[in-house]
């Protein structure tokens, strides 16, 4: 072999190797920058989509296909509660001065108030005709009421808020595991039925109650849930690749952090930060992949959830010095995620290309479809990035 051939073959190996990496693991991370005002503007546009599709009975447009300008059938009361909560979060971020937004959220709230049923020591949010109450629905309704209080200072629904809290607390076992369903016929929680979502949702909602009503004993059940999520949930409930990226758990940690987290909770917060950070990093590389190496670009809900998680953990790191080393990276990833959200949101100009621009503008579509939780999670994530959730500016 001549020297020239050695040099040539080495050059080929380097070029092919670098090229392969550049199109996969080492693809450029594209992170459009957004400032707080732009994030708030995008969140407001998302709320505009929710308001535009709201019906007279308080329900929101559930799923929409922009290709044929048709609403898809179906509804989900847990998602209804979540969307209402996000509207109140935005109302709080805007200091409650947006009366149209508050009116839309209150109409959504009325839909839920009409569906409160006695459950355990309190009341649960239940779909009409259902014999079971789902924990997540009650939890997100409680979170919505807490956000409404943030937005308005109005204590009008505190009785319902506490009743939801008592129901949720009854679903929490001594270990901190949360039972997902309550059997309204048997008048008892359904044993051994859990949900990857509702534990964090309930823990967070109970922690919100503790923040609003600090002397009423809500702290202990919220911390039991946090301990369970931090130390046992992923294994006990068969989650692969722990930690499962649970933004509700991140909300819970951020609510508890000002009054202190234990070492297990801090370790869990660090692991969650890594998971959300990796998800945002790989998402930011996807526009540089020639083919979807892992999966296509995330839905608005998926990306929004990750940004919500990072926003919550940024707040945890801001008050807990044990996570101080993560602060710059968390800020960076949070801003990257918010930038991706803002970039992928349908603008008013692009929406004009469709038959019903009001039901396209401000939304996030994948394969021509959007669902109301795409807007909910993206909206909350953008507010988190703008520092408008949980304790004011970053």
């Amino acid at each position: 072999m001549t020297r020239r051939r050695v040099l040539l073959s080495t050059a080929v190996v380097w070029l092919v190797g670098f090229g392969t990496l550049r199109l996969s693991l080492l693809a450029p991370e594209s992170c459009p920058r957004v400032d707080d005002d732009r994030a708030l503007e995008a969140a407001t546009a998302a709320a505009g989509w929710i308001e535009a599709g709201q019906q007279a009975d308080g329900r929101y447009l559930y799923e929409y296909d922009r290709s044929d300008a048709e609403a898809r059938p179906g509804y989900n009361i847990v998602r209804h509660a979540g969307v209402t909560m996000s509207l109140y979060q935005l109302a709080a971020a805007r200091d409650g001065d947006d009366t149209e937004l508050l009116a839309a959220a209150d109409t959504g709230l009325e839909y839920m108030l009409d569906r409160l049923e006695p459950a355990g020591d309190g009341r649960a949010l239940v779909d009409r005709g259902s014999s079971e109450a789902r924990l997540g629905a009650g939890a997100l309704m409680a979170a919505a009421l807490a956000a409404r209080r943030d937005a308005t200072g109005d204590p009008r629904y505190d009785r319902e808020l506490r009743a939801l809290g008592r129901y949720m607390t009854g679903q929490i076992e001594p270990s901190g595991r949360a039972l997902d369903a309550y059997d309204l016929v048997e008048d008892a929680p359904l044993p051994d039925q859990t949900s990857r979502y509702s534990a964090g949702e309930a823990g967070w909602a109970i922690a919100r109650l503790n923040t609003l009503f600090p002397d009423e004993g809500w702290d202990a059940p919220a911390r039991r849930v946090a301990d369970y999520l931090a130390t046992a949930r992923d294994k006990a409930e068969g989650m692969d690749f722990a930690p499962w990226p649970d933004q509700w758990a991140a909300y819970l940690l951020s609510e508890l952090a000002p009054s202190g987290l234990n070492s297990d909770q801090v370790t869990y917060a660090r692991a969650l930060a890594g998971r959300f950070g990796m998800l945002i990093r790989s998402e930011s590389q996807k526009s540089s992949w020639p083919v979807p190496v892992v999966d296509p670009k995330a839905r608005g809900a998926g990306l929004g959830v990750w940004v919500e998680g990072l926003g919550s953990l940024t707040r945890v790191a801001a008050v807990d010095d044990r996570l101080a080393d993560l602060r710059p990276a968390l800020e960076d990833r949070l801003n990257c995620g918010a930038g991706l959200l803002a970039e992928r949101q349908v603008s008013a100009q692009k929406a004009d290309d469709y038959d019903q621009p009001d039901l396209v503008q401000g939304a996030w579509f994948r394969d021509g479809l959007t669902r109301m939780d795409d807007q909910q999670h993206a909206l909350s994530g953008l507010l988190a990035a703008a520092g408008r959730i949980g304790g004011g500016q970053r």
Partner: protein
Amino acid sequence: MRSGLIILFVAVNPPAVALTLWARVDRTVLAAGLAMTGALAVVLGLLSDPILDLLSVNPATFRVTAGAVLGLAAATWLSRGPRLLPLEDDLVTGEETRDAKRWSALIVPVLIPTLVTPQLVAASIAVGADEGVLPAAVGAIVALGLAGTAAVLVARGRPGVWSVGVRLVGLVGAVVALGMVVDGVKSV
């Protein structure tokens, strides 16, 4: 500092360098090659941040990539042992003078493809970005120094033993590479 040392040690794989080069180049040329490679590693460690900015990736993402590159090299060492190059005489033309022939080995095979490898370049940048230029510099100097020492000592030992050493470092390299990938994936 400790992880930087280990990463650069396995990226160089001193027994592999020794077995590849000891009979093919004289000590002066080898020393020059080791010095130049060390200098390159230091420069890469020093410029790691601008390099990552240029590539538009953050250190955690690059760590995953460096781990993958190192893992590939480690798998090659484990499966094939040391790299066997053609004899030096085959690499040069007969028109070259004796001295030029001696120094021509500096480029091939000393620097390329033996010392300046994808895994060394990736490791230098990764360690520089994660731990700073000092661990990158110390790691590279120690690893290359060991490679030079091994190249001197290899003539006294049995090649079979050194070949086992290559695979052993390859095995450690595979573990280190896996650790880099996992750490990069789990980083914010």
